[in-house]
């Protein structure tokens, strides 16, 4: 184990802002993309179903 304590881990030897800023933004981007994809899928499916109902009428 290279960290003396969890506090040392979170402090990242004084680089906390930069290291966690990087990893945090990456995580946020991935989460955002996944969320957008799910929403897009739901929207497309519901739109196509509406179109289908419209077509069959």
């Amino acid at each position, binding site marked *: 184990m*290279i960290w003396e304590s969890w506090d040392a881990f979170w402090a990242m030897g004084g*680089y906390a802002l930069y290291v966690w800023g990087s990893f945090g*933004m990456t995580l946020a981007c991935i989460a955002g993309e996944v969320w957008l994809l799910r929403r897009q899928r739901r929207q497309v499916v519901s739109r196509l179903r509406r179109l289908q109902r419209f077509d069959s009428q």
Partner: protein
Amino acid sequence: MNLYRYASPATFHPLAGRLVPWFAALAAALAAAGLYISFFVAPTDFQQGEGYRIIFIHVPAAWMSMFIYIVMAFWSAIGLAWNTRLSFVMARALAPTGAMFTFVALWTGALWGKPMWGAWWVWDARLTSSLILLFLYVGYMALQAAIDDPRRADRAGALLNLVGVINVPIIYFSVKWWNTLHQGASVSLTRAPSMAQTMLWGMLVMALAAWMYTIAVALVRARTLILERERQTEWARAVLKEEA
């Protein structure tokens, strides 16, 4: 109905649906392993302290941003050569993820630059060419968004993509050339002085995780695109009935 033409999307859609969870799971497992290596196995760098751990994100993201553009060009070329719709869809599905990774590479580059170079942005060759790569992604997506006819959007995007991929090495070379003329070599993010074996492993595992993630996300996006385009067909109707 010409069955042959619809055969591949009809089989692709359920197949991709089954593959997505596997790739997602692989991505999660690899990311966990990669993060473990980056934070608990890789030792502190004697020059850059803990700040260097950013490279475990930055380098894989920069690799991915390049690879994805090249893979897109591969699909575009196949689509133009053999007129296969699925390849255009794959190229299109990859673009937003590629742009996302390019952005991440820029962001992490800036966060690394601040403590190391003392500035958020330095016109370093790598950062500059990443920025131009981001412009290329944006141009590709803007062109696709501006064209309503999917057939034209596919082909126009593919051509732009191919022009871009021919240009990427030229752009990269020119930026590097410009950079050496104007400010001389500076400490580079990727040429960290003590490139230990563990660091290389960490970056490789993270890059693999990013690959698996990219495949999973692109498959999901491609499924949606295909469903949208093939909504008139039997299989798409069946899928829509199933999916709530």
